[in-house]
């Protein structure tokens, strides 16, 4: 993906995550967030939640995957902003990461793209909407 190929408003491919206990346990083991609310339903209910729910690193990673799938290996991530939890992402639900290009600009010769992104479930937005800011290579690079 090159900066010049990007159109403001274009949709990124949606990423679907069926959230089940298996996935959430794998995530906790991999990203080291062993807070019991993320892998123990009974414990999670005692903290006021309806079920165990996806942890922060998993949700951040879900945003990264959506953007990486779109921009490919040449893009670099510069920032994540407004990653806000609006609702828990419970085991037993399906979560989708949806995004579109909100803006693009040149900072000198650097091509910067802002991707508006959020997690949703059947009830609406659960995380975000926020922004992932990326830098994409220019089509003219390498021709100088």
């Amino acid at each position: 993906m090159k900066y010049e190929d990007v159109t403001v408003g274009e949709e990124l491919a949606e990423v679907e995550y069926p959230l089940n206990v298996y996935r959430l346990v794998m995530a906790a083991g991999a990203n080291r967030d062993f807070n019991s609310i993320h892998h123990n339903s009974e414990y999670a209910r005692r903290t006021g939640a309806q079920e165990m729910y996806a942890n922060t690193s998993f949700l951040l990673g879900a945003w990264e995957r959506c953007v990486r799938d779109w921009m490919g290996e040449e893009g670099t991530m510069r920032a994540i902003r407004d990653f806000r939890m609006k609702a828990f992402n419970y085991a037993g639900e399906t979560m989708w990461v949806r995004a579109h290009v909100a803006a693009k600009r040149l900072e000198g010769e650097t091509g910067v793209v802002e991707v508006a992104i959020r997690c949703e479930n059947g009830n609406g937005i659960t995380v975000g909407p926020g922004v992932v800011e990326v830098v994409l290579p220019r089509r003219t690079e390498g021709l100088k």
Partner: protein
Amino acid sequence: MTGPEADSKADWKAEWQPVIDAVGRDFAPETRMGADAVERGAIRRYLEPLELDCALHTDPEAARAAGFADVTMPYTGVVAWTIPPMWRPGERLFDSADRDAQPVRSPINNQEMTLGPKTTGFFATDIALDFLRPVTAGERIGRRSNRLLSCTPKETSVGRGAFLKWESDIVTEDGEVVARIRIGTYAYVPKTEGDE
């Protein structure tokens, strides 16, 4: 509102005043490194539940062709790879066989906050990250500083507590800043049955 109910409401918020007074304080001025260096196997395990397919994270040749010394850590790994160890040699991690017993000590549940009321509920509410450069396998990262930016007591659907905002630098062992993180958390006393 007057009487005992109003007093109770005022009391629980007042318990957070020492934390409010500490806004601006750096609770961890020293650098605390993550438990392990970033390495290929841990990156692979991080990718699995995300089904995140990018050769920069899995293929050393592809990573080197892109100019990196080894595979790169997913950017969002700055949270996972800066978590201190759950256990250290000589320590006891669990002291109860109760089904839901918690570890004696955990680096991720607000236990290290010495001010304010004791809370047992804890989760992240929001995050902002700035990435200065990718981290590659073989590097080790940690957090330098943990400055309290704000504290707002609030009752929510899950309990009474406070929204806290923290700021840290993500650094290498050489002290190079590779990312910056601002994280919001909600630390609370969960509602019990019978609470309104």
